[in-house]
């Protein structure tokens, strides 16, 4: 049975004032170090089959937490209980040696996970098959591209379905094809009851795979909950290191709305209009709509860029851009001014609920200066009025060209 229990885990590294202090401590038995805490009082439980994402900026303690969970490092306080077969992808290709062939390295990589030679022999065809590196399997590893190395390493590490799978950003490498493939395998493991713990900066990965997300900041859990909500909060935190308020309020739609920033410029209203200028809440598929965003300037600023995006029900960005990229940056704005941004587009969206995300920033991205950032500034429904039935999150006016062929001769000519 797989389980993962993290109880009041804290981790401190020892810091000695000088080179001789440690020796003095060992000899006299008197503590001479100060503790540098990187994790404090972290508690959470992961149920069997649950997938939990851990997010946080660099240095928040994510990797240390994973090390403590996998048993690579020992917690200073608290305890970790972990049950079943544990596989950790902290770093792919650990124990690989460049001079040996891929096949030999498979043995090495699997042995370090506690597998026996005979077991590995049995798994070998599956591993080769999944890695899809062909004849390279019998070439020295140093002749591999980094992508191939990582394919092989991933295949080895996940050759047997573990009860608990711990992944540290390992998935952000490799080409799109293999990423899909590895995600599929991880999802399948999850469906079969594998408990997942993932550290990633990839919003998509966290939101699509995880049931829950935990946000770490300076070694402390600052937020825990639905991935979308936590990711929004994280984006807001990331937005700026200036003093700013991050607050979350439950909006009418019962989803948490995150808004943050310095409020030097502020979005006051977001409305949707149809082609006739009528205010609407429900948008027909493919209709021409205009979103009007009203912005008030609270202080003199030397640059203003509006970021606009549409997210689907799961919080995935369907489309987004900003006025920096369209070369429409406002160079200067005075206190008290009001700017109206009219964003017009064809609502080529699938049926369902979508939200509008807007941000007011000084330049290209929100990292430098973030005036105002709102997730789910406006939620609207898309309905299918006059289009043929279709599924998916995007509308595409596709055409089928169909021809009945009665003669075999014709087929060969056609193809």
């Amino acid at each position: 049975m797989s389980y993962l229990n993290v109880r009041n885990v804290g981790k401190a590294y020892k810091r000695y004032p000088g080179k001789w202090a440690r020796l003095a401590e060992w000899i006299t038995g008197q503590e001479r170090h100060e503790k540098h805490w990187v994790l404090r009082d972290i508690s959470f439980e992961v149920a069997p089959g649950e997938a939990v994402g851990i997010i946080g900026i660099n240095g928040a303690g994510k990797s240390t937490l994973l090390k403590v969970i996998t048993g690579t490092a020992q917690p200073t306080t608290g305890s970790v209980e972990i049950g079943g077969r544990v596989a950790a992808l902290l770093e792919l290709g650990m124990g690989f040696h460049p001079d040996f062939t891929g096949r030999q390295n498979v043995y090495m990589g699997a042995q370090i996970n506690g597998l026996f030679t005979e077991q590995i022999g049995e798994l070998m065809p599956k591993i080769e098959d999944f890695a899809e590196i062909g004849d390279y399997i019998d070439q020295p590893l140093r002749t591999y591209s980094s992508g191939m190395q990582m394919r092989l390493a991933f295949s080895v590490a996940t050759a047997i379905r573990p009860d608990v799978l711990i992944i540290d950003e390992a998935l952000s490498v490799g080409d799109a094809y293999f990423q899909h493939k590895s995600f599929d395998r991880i999802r399948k493991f999850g469906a079969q009851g594998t408990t997942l713990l993932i550290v990633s900066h990839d919003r998509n990965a966290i939101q699509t795979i995880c049931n829950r997300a935990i946000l770490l900041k300076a070694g402390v859990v600052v937020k825990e909950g639905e991935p979308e909500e936590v990711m929004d909060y994280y984006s807001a935190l990331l937005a700026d290191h200036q003093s700013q308020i991050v607050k979350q309020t439950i909006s009418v739609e019962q989803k948490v709305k995150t808004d943050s920033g310095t409020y030097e410029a502020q979005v006051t209203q977001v409305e949707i209009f149809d082609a006739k200028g009528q205010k609407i809440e429900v948008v027909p598929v493919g209709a021409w709509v205009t979103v009007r965003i009203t912005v008030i300037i609270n202080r003199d600023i030397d640059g203003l860029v509006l970021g606009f995006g549409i997210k689907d029900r799961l919080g995935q960005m369907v489309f987004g851009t900003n006025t920096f990229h369209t070369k429409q940056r406002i160079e200067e704005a005075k206190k008290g001014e009001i700017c109206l941004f009219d964003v017009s587009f064809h609502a080529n969206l699938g049926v369902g609920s979508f939200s509008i995300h807007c941000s007011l920033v000084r330049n290209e991205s929100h990292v430098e200066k973030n005036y105002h950032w709102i997730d789910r500034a406006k939620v609207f429904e898309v309905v299918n009025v006059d289009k043929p039935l279709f599924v998916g999150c995007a509308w595409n006016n596709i055409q089928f060209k169909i021809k009945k062929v009665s003669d075999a001769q014709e087929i060969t000519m056609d193809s």
Partner: protein
Amino acid sequence: MLHPVMFRSLWQYRGFVWGSVLREFNGKYRETLFGAFWAVAGPLTMIVIYTVIFSQLMRPTLSGHESTPFAFSIYLCAGSISWGLFAEMLGRLNNVFLENGNLIKKASFPRICLPMIAILSALINSGILLGIYLLFLLIIGHWPGLPMISIIPLLVLQLLFTMGLGVALGTLNVFFRDVGQIIGVVLQFWFWLTPIVYTLQALPEGARELMQFNPLLPLISAWQTVFLDRTWPDFASLLPLVVLTLLMLWLGAWLFMGRVGELVDEL
């Protein structure tokens, strides 16, 4: 080291330990044209040089073995093999955690595997040397016969002693990197303070007295007795080393078990 859990996890990871030993051996000669020949070439060279220099050029005589051909080579090689194993093993154990720092930080496996891999690797190298040495003895007609069995307990004792001392030093070396440097210096002195290249009899009385404090002396002497005199060694003389070995094993286990968790924080 003396904990049942440790033995169990070591047994569970025997595939990894044995695989690593083999890979290390293969890896050394992997990209060479002559392959495993090089594993034999080194030891062979040593025996040939010792033989040529000391039986043809310098001709030192050993009292009681004036009529034995190659007597000094036999003596020199016996001591060198035993010492070589000790020095190689100690040197490797000393750095075993530092060298594998990355592995320790990133992968979770029983840490005791690492010293085990180092010990077995060193044993293989010495095994080859010993094999060639025995072949040499056979060819020159100086086969030691039955007393050779005593090499087994001698080896076991030496392994345990080196293991205890080496694991203790290896653990210390992570926290105090000076240890590694000190060992290099100490090994040099220790080698020349052990009758390997010279004989105990060649020393003046006072020096011989002092030599009794060298714990490795009875061990090396035992090897020399077995191969040169072809008689059973004086097992009673090994008693102090047995006691010291137990002490070292305890020290190694105490340091390793107590600090293994903290180890990774320092790498």
